[in-house]
């Protein structure tokens, strides 16, 4: 780049000064560039990635790009190369696109060798880029305040352009790629504008309109807008008119000018020859010498006139190229924003996380013409889980742990990264037949995951693409965070609704369960008031006693369940003769008309709370009678340091899906809900008490059909606890 830095002629060096503030837009930065007066150093306070204009200038004129944050830098000196004789004013904007593209691709790094080219188009174009800043207020990048610049120099030779760059194969391919990339964006933006909401197109129009207004405003304010300068130069070059001249008109004018010049100078040369050959006499009114001098003077005068016009024509053609370049740049920028806005809207239009992830991936692929890609989300253990995938060898749900992958690198560094041709192996461990870009998905400082976009080798990604993907990653990450929040809230609401439904069901169940004993009690009282025999009256009193006992048990169960729920349980563990206890419960059940067969050894001790144990066995036996079918067996089997208590029935059994749910409070199995009594507390109480005694409860299919409720209990315990059960409410 050093070759461009030294002024090769006596050209006055252009001084550029610019001031960054955090958040300055690259375009505004370039505005400062039109100044060539000596402006004292200004404090540069810019984030490197945002200083695209700096990069632009750096690439263009070897000014060091990307000023570090908070540095007091001397204003970079831009030395311009001399006028190139090979300048072709009508040259299209091709060469100038490269630096502009670099300017737009803020944050990207370009390592390609710099072509020799004149900075002039870009310098002159800076004013328009300043307008671009006005046109695109939402342009990403730091906010920036351009330093007011002094009057532009009028020395045309210093600014003379050299639009034809010595195009090496490298620069050519790069230029072509950039041009292709830009046109891609244009076509994509147009397609999107058709497909996506009309709002996008409307906002685009609005932006363009406001851009035009801003352009006029900037021209008025600066007083040296490029159009004014074009008109001025056009007038000076003899191309005055209402409309701006075209580059073709300038070329024609130049041919015309030099054609006339050649004719005139040829005639003067002929005149000189004639005057030299002709004999002069003394009586001539003017001497031959004087005549020759006059002809030479005329030739000189005309030559000066022609050169002056040439200068103006050159400046005019350069300004026209600038205009075209800047318009292209603005169009590209607008298209990029349209595409990003459309993609941002798309990812925010859905709330379901899976859908959001799919939209993010498809939007990114569509925007960047990637052929395949994936979204990976960071998991709690630091692994990256593939959650959305298109085309790659990855599988949804796959977890990536290796840090050597591109995604791993990006997750670790939180910096966007890309691998070009031949490095695909780094990205995915494949044959290197792909190019890949990876950007981190960061929301509020938290790394959520990585977005990976890949393409085949015929679609070469550049830094500009990486920059666009990075910009897209921001709304994408926000959308993921929102979708997660929404998902969590939705699950919470579903849980609350489920709880509410269960409570309603509980109230219905309890009221129903209260009605049944109340019916018997009221009926018994009504019957007892009638003339009945004494033994019948005694029977009625038994009914009343049984049913009030049932009511009391129900109230007790509800209280016990509430106790277990609120305070857990601290039962009094001691040695219990389980075999005897089981036989007693079986006897009670027998007396109540519900026979139970006991299969137990003579003695079998466990460590448990006696009251809790009695309730466990009673509840399980009642449960078997209510929901199972006879015969019902109570089995006690010692098993090492544990004892297995089983209550086996021959009913329909418990469906697999309900085997855990039946131990939830208030839950009542689907098939028993409507035709069996019960309030859905018996089994939850059994589980709570068994666990409090250090045991566990579950249900399984009984051999030969039916349900087998198993309670595993300990035979020994570390220490007996003296705390009474149920525990008194803690203060």
């Amino acid at each position, binding site marked *: 780049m050093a070759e461009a830095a030294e002024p090769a002629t006596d050209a006055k060096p252009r001084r550029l000064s610019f001031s960054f503030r955090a958040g300055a837009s690259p375009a505004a930065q370039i505005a400062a560039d039109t100044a060539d007066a000596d402006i004292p150093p200004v404090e540069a306070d810019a984030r490197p990635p945002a200083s695209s204009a700096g990069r632009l200038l750096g690439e263009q004129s070897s000014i060091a790009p990307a000023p570090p944050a908070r540095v007091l830098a001397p204003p970079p000196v831009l030395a311009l190369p001399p006028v190139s004789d090979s300048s072709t004013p009508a040259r299209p904007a091709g060469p100038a696109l490269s630096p502009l593209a670099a300017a737009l691709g803020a944050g990207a790094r370009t390592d390609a060798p710099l072509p020799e080219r004149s900075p002039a188009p870009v310098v002159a174009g800076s004013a328009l880029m300043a307008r671009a800043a006005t046109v695109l207020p939402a342009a990403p990048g730091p906010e920036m305040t351009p330093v007011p610049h002094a009057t532009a120099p009028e020395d045309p030779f210093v600014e003379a352009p050299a639009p034809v760059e010595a195009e090496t194969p490298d620069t050519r391919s790069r230029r072509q790629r950039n041009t292709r990339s830009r046109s891609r964006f244009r076509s994509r933006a147009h397609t999107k504008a058709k497909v996506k909401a009309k709002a996008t197109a409307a906002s685009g129009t609005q932006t363009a309109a406001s851009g035009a207004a801003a352009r006029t405003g900037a021209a008025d304010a600066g007083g040296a807008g490029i159009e004014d300068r074009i008109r001025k130069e056009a007038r000076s070059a003899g191309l005055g008119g209402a409309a701006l001249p075209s580059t073709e008109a300038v070329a024609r004018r130049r041919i015309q000018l030099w054609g006339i010049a050649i004719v005139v100078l040829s005639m003067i040369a002929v005149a000189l020859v004639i005057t030299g050959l002709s004999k002069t006499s003394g009586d001539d009114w003017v001497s031959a010498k004087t005549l020759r001098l006059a002809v030479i003077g005329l030739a000189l005068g005309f030559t000066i006139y022609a050169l002056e016009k040439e200068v103006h024509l050159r400046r005019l053609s350069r300004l026209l190229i600038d205009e075209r370049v800047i318009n292209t740049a603005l169009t590209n920028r607008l298209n990029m924003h349209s595409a990003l806005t459309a993609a941002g809207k798309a990812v925010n239009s859905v709330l379901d996380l899976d859908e959001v992830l799919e939209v993010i991936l498809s939007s990114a692929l569509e925007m960047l013409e990637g052929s395949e890609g994936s979204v990976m989300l960071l998991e709690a253990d630091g692994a990256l889980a593939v959650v959305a995938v298109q085309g790659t060898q990855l599988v949804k749900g796959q977890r990536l742990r290796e840090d050597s992958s591109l995604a791993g690198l990006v997750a670790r560094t939180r910096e966007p990264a890309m691998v070009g041709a031949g490095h695909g192996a780094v990205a995915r461990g494949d044959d290197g037949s792909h190019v890949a870009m990876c950007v981190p998905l960061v929301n509020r400082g938290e790394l959520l995951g990585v977005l990976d976009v890949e393409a085949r080798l015929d679609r070469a990604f550049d830094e500009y693409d990486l920059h666009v993907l990075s910009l897209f990653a921001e709304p994408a990450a926000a959308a993921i965070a929102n979708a997660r929040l929404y998902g969590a809230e939705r699950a919470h609401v579903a849980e609350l609704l489920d709880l509410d439904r269960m409570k309603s069901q509980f109230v219905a169940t309890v009221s*129903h369960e209260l009605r*049944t*004993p109340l019916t018997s009690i*009221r*009926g018994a009282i*009504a019957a007892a008031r009638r003339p009945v025999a004494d033994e019948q009256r005694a029977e009625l009193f038994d*009914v009343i006693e049984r*049913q009030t006992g049932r009511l009391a048990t129900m109230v007790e169960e509800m209280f016990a369940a509430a106790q277990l729920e609120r305070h857990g349980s601290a039962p009094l563990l001691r040695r219990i003769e389980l075999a005897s206890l089981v036989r007693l419960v079986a006897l009670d059940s027998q007396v109540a*008309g519900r026979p139970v067969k006991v299969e137990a050894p003579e003695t079998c001790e466990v460590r448990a709370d006696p009251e809790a144990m009695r309730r466990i066995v009673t509840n399980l036996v009642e449960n078997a009678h209510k929901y199972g079918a006879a015969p019902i067996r109570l089995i006690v089997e010692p098993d090492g340091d544990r004892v297995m208590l089983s209550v086996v029935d021959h009913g329909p059994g418990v469906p697999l899906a309900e085997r855990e749910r039946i131990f939830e409070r208030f839950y009542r199995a689907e098939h028993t809900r409507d*035709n069996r009594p019960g309030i859905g507390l018996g089994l939850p109480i059994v589980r709570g008490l068994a666990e409090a005694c250090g045991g566990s409860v579950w249900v399984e299919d009984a051999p030969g059909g039916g349900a087998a409720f198993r309670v595993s209990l300990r035979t020994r315990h570390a220490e007996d606890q003296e705390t009474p059960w149920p525990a008194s409410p803690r203060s």
Partner: protein
Amino acid sequence: MAGKSKILIVDDEPDVLLTLRMILESEGFDASLAADGETALRRIDEDHPDLVVLDIMMPVLDGWFVLAELAGRTRRPAVIVCSAKSSEADVGRARDLGAADYVTKPWDADDLLRRIRESLGRREHVGI
């Protein structure tokens, strides 16, 4: 009313069966019992009761099944549904299945007896 009216009490709760039978017998009815739907249908076929006091929530075959079964018969007893279920949907369903009346548990004995007599009266009036 010619002779004693025969009433079948269907309920899975033994104490309800016991008390209701005493009440009905003390009022001069001939009461018989069933503890589930299957037994009830059998006894209806054997005894031909004039009226059935039918619970809904029962094991084996529930009251809805019994009602639906009776609804398809031309000669059938009057049915008073007597259930702890009290929603309007249940009342409507019972009516649709041809129940003569619907009493919610816990019933009042005098009210239940009045409804039983009304149903039997209607039945006699239409000459079934």
